């Protein structure tokens, strides 16, 4: 839906200092462009729960991190994000790949479609659903709005077709 260059430029414009990430086939290819621009550092972790806590440390240390993972990793992240977002009340922002949202040919009946949005609601994360290339600007708008409100936020990037 978006090129790595588009995302890299957006993150740079938003002042994102670090992207803490575990890749999937949609968001993973963005890493190269982000690193190439050089203003936003990519931090690779082994498991998505780690990503929230590394981002928490970056925020406590005065930086502006962003978590970039797939929705399957969101499911894995539960306690790590609960503590960061709700116990320590850190306004972390995330880009979450929404597996199979646009196309279920590879995984017919993918239950990511059943659970992703209810899980975000359960964790009280204010999110926007991004399903077309024309919505690129909405990512930045939601990031800025959440930052101004001092609250966590996310964008769900529909995945499944180019």
């Amino acid at each position: 839906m978006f090129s790595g260059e588009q995302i890299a430029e957006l993150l740079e414009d938003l002042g994102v200092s670090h992207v803490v990430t575990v890749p999937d086939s949609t968001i993973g290819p963005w890493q190269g462009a982000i690193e190439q621009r050089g203003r936003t550092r990519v931090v690779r972790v082994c498991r998505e729960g780690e990503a929230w806590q590394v981002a928490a440390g970056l925020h406590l240390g005065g930086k502006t991190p962003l978590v970039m993972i797939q929705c399957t990793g969101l499911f894995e992240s539960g306690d790590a994000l609960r503590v960061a977002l709700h116990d320590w009340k850190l306004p972390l922002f995330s880009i979450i790949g929404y597996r199979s949202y646009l196309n279920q040919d590879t995984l017919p009946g993918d239950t990511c479609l059943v659970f992703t949005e209810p899980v975000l609601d359960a964790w009280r994360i204010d999110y926007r659903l991004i399903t077309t290339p024309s919505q690129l600007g909405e990512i930045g708008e939601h990031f800025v709005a959440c930052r101004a409100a001092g609250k966590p936020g996310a964008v769900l990037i529909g995945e499944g077709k180019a």
Partner: protein
Amino acid sequence: MSAPRMSAKEALVAVHAARGERDVVVTTMSPARDWMTLRQHPLDVVLVPSAMGHATSIGLGIALAQPERRVIVCNGDGSMLMNLGSLVSIAAAGAANLVVLVFDNGVYEVTGAQPIPSPGAIDFVAIARGSGFASVFEHSEIDRWREDVQRILSAPGPTMALLHVEPVTGIPGPRSPGPAADRGRRFTAAIQQQG
């Protein structure tokens, strides 16, 4: 005959004496409980409440945000097992200013000293080396630890030191020293104020 072990509290006291004014110290679980009995510092991060196992990840984030500052994480062996992958993430990120101290007592102390999986059989030293840590140490005697702690904290990082300590039973786990969000804001302000 079992391997010698030192007092966890005495080992922490040595860390407390060796930490520099600009150092960040992250503590969790039983090390947090003991650390809170010592003089507090604005750059202490007491991870209570915590997502168990994630002290190393929080430490990595702070270390990357503050690369000119040393970050010392006081972790338990049970906590370390919950997030072994973080050792790889730390090395991959090249966090040369991060020191991970693993207090190995063989048990989940704060829940009543139930054994961790395979106590005594896990080679944390080999795991840290194999993950790419630049400096790895192992200590079980308090006198040697006191002598070496400053040198170990200053070794080329990322650094891991495995400390064999006696489990302590019959003492409750750490209590939160206050609202986490307030403490987090004070910590960030202290970092920014110090510059």
